[in-house]
């Protein structure tokens, strides 16, 4: 036991005496949270649009006013002719243009039907769809205003409610993703590099030629990173709740418990990588490439998994972060208890057990 404790203490010395490790450990989560929180957001704010209003009457002015009031839009240009629209798009200044024909209001009043043209830059299809939907909503709301009190037969009103995230904040989507990413990256990278470092500097030889159980070497390497990861998790949670207004509806102990499972999964992955590499660079490269891409692609926080072709969906099932992502969303946002996530937890636990088994099996008590 004394041996184990001094080994753990030694690992903490390694971490706290190396500025690069410290930066990696605590700089990365903060940077990722801030990056995803402010820079890489997929919320649409202040999209520049152009308006070409041939009618310029009571109705169109009211609609344009509503557009201006909405913070999704910023009216960049008021065009005199629809011929200028393409020019404006090509200059890349606007994302969307709205054209009101002449006699818009009189058509509306007398023919009971008026047309408005919405032209969007669909080179980014998601933004284009979202923006046209926003415009449609605004036009609809104007229509509701003027038909208010009048009876129109057979009208279907759709009322949409955005559950759990009524303001459609991006943070609710990416914070669980970033949590998975950071925990996986940090744990896998740190454990694999720290074990391979011992091989590289030759200290592994001395450790092996000692009565200390080789498996305890591994476990005592994992312990410091386990606790540091929990600290990391706390930093991410504090930042996202207080800075990014991320909701937290569930049980915090359940979240830490589930996160611990992911951390152990990651530690055993790191151990597996360290068994099959001989240099710190190789370990770092494999950990980064092997963790970053699958986590970004198959977790579901950047690309919805439902839209992927079946083979990719199958692959996503073996990515631990996918299950963790579901668990965190359920706990933090929906405030669900263990009964709702026991299936995902079971999958994560079995992954961990398999990984641990394989990596202990592969661990060498000798060189080569």
């Amino acid at each position: 036991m004394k041996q184990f404790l001094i080994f753990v203490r030694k690992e903490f010395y390694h971490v706290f005496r190396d500025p690069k490790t410290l930066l990696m450990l605590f700089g990365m989560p903060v940077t990722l949270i801030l990056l995803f929180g402010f820079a890489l957001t997929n919320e649409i704010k202040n999209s520049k649009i152009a308006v070409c209003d041939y009618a310029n009457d009571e109705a169109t002015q009211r609609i344009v006013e509503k557009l201006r009031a909405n913070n999704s839009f910023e009216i960049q240009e008021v065009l005199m002719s629809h011929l200028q629209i393409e020019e404006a798009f090509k200059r890349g200044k606007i994302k969307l243009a709205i054209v009101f024909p002449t006699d818009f209001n009189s058509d509306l009043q007398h023919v009971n039907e008026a047309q408005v043209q919405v032209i969007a830059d669909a080179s980014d299809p998601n933004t284009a769809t979202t923006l046209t939907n926003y415009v449609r909503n605004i036009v609809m709301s104007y229509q509701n205003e003027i038909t208010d009190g009048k009876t129109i037969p057979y009208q279907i009103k759709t009322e949409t409610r955005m559950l759990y995230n009524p303001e459609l904040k991006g943070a609710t989507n990416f914070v669980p993703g970033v949590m998975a990413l950071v925990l996986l990256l940090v744990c896998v990278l740190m454990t694999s590099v720290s074990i391979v470092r011992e091989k590289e500097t030759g200290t592994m030889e001395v450790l092996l030629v000692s009565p200390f159980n080789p498996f305890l070497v591994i476990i005592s390497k994992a312990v410091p990173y386990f606790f540091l990861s929990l600290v990391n998790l706390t930093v991410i949670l504090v930042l996202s709740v207080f800075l990014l207004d991320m909701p937290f509806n569930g049980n915090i102990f359940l979240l830490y418990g589930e996160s611990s499972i992911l951390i152990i999964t990651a530690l055993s992955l790191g151990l597996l990588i360290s068994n099959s590499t001989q240099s710190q660079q190789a370990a770092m490269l494999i950990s980064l490439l092997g963790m970053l891409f699958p986590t970004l692609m198959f977790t579901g926080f950047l690309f919805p998994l439902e839209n992927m072709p079946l083979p990719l969906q199958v692959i996503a099932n073996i990515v631990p972060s996918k299950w963790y992502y579901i668990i965190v969303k359920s706990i933090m946002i929906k405030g669900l208890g263990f009964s709702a996530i026991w299936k995902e937890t079971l999958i994560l636990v079995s992954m961990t057990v398999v990984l641990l088994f394989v990596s202990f099996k592969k661990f060498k008590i000798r060189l080569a």
Partner: protein
Amino acid sequence: MGDVVLTNISKTYNDGKTVAVDDVSFSVNKGELFGLIGPDGAGKTSIFRILTTLLIPDGGTASVSGSDVVKDYKTIRRNIGYMPGKFSLYQDLTVEENLNFFATLFDTSIAANYDLVKEIYVQLEPFKKRRAAKLSGGMKQKLALCCALIHKPEVLFLDEPTTGVDAVSRKEFWEMLYRLKEQGITILVSTPYMDEATLCERIALIQGGKIMSIDTPDNIIGQYPKKMFAVRAEKMSTLLKELREYDPIESCFAFGEYHHVTFKAENGNNAEALNTYLNQKGYEQVHVKQTSATIEDCFIRQMNE
């Protein structure tokens, strides 16, 4: 019965393509200071790793203090001290932390075996709060030796402990080994430096994974079949070429400030004849004298045979 026994040990790498150790057998007696002498790539480290249970040999058997290196690896790991060729301490830990770590790892403490490392450790004590990375090469080796000794091992394996260490520290290091030997510890040391060979009680000359000879340094030198001459003159570099072209000479190698020369035929006036020959060739301050062969001479001769 030896304390360390190797019987027909062989080891290959790259699926048998690279032969590192080729049918090696020798034994080291209890309390002996035994040297494995050979250049880089001779197979010294592979032998050390097999004996310290880090590698499994492809063939043959080996035992340390009566325990088999494959079957009883756990017993061996408790009872030996090992200092690998590379500086293998934690660079970011201080002298004291390193020593403390290794002492605890072997389930002992600095205080318990202090008398064993005392003489070495007093030299390190002024720097005990300094990180290992900031120590000089000689200090690092001393610390590594301390760490390998702290649990009072029965057998000590030192793989090239003096490589990259200055002459003074090397001398001090060997003095420490003598003192450890007096305490009854069996010491197996490897070195590429031929001049250190004479400091061992018995040596094995190793080259290309094969043992060329095993004996005391004096016996190995005594078995050198030829008379050895040392030659010096003003222009040493051209002299070496000149000597190799001189027909009566059998072999000639640069050796410090002299060239070591042997003659094909051993007759009395070889030295005089060479002296005259070189004077004729225009060399000044020619000096030819008989000398005794060194381990290096023996090594080169055996290597070429």
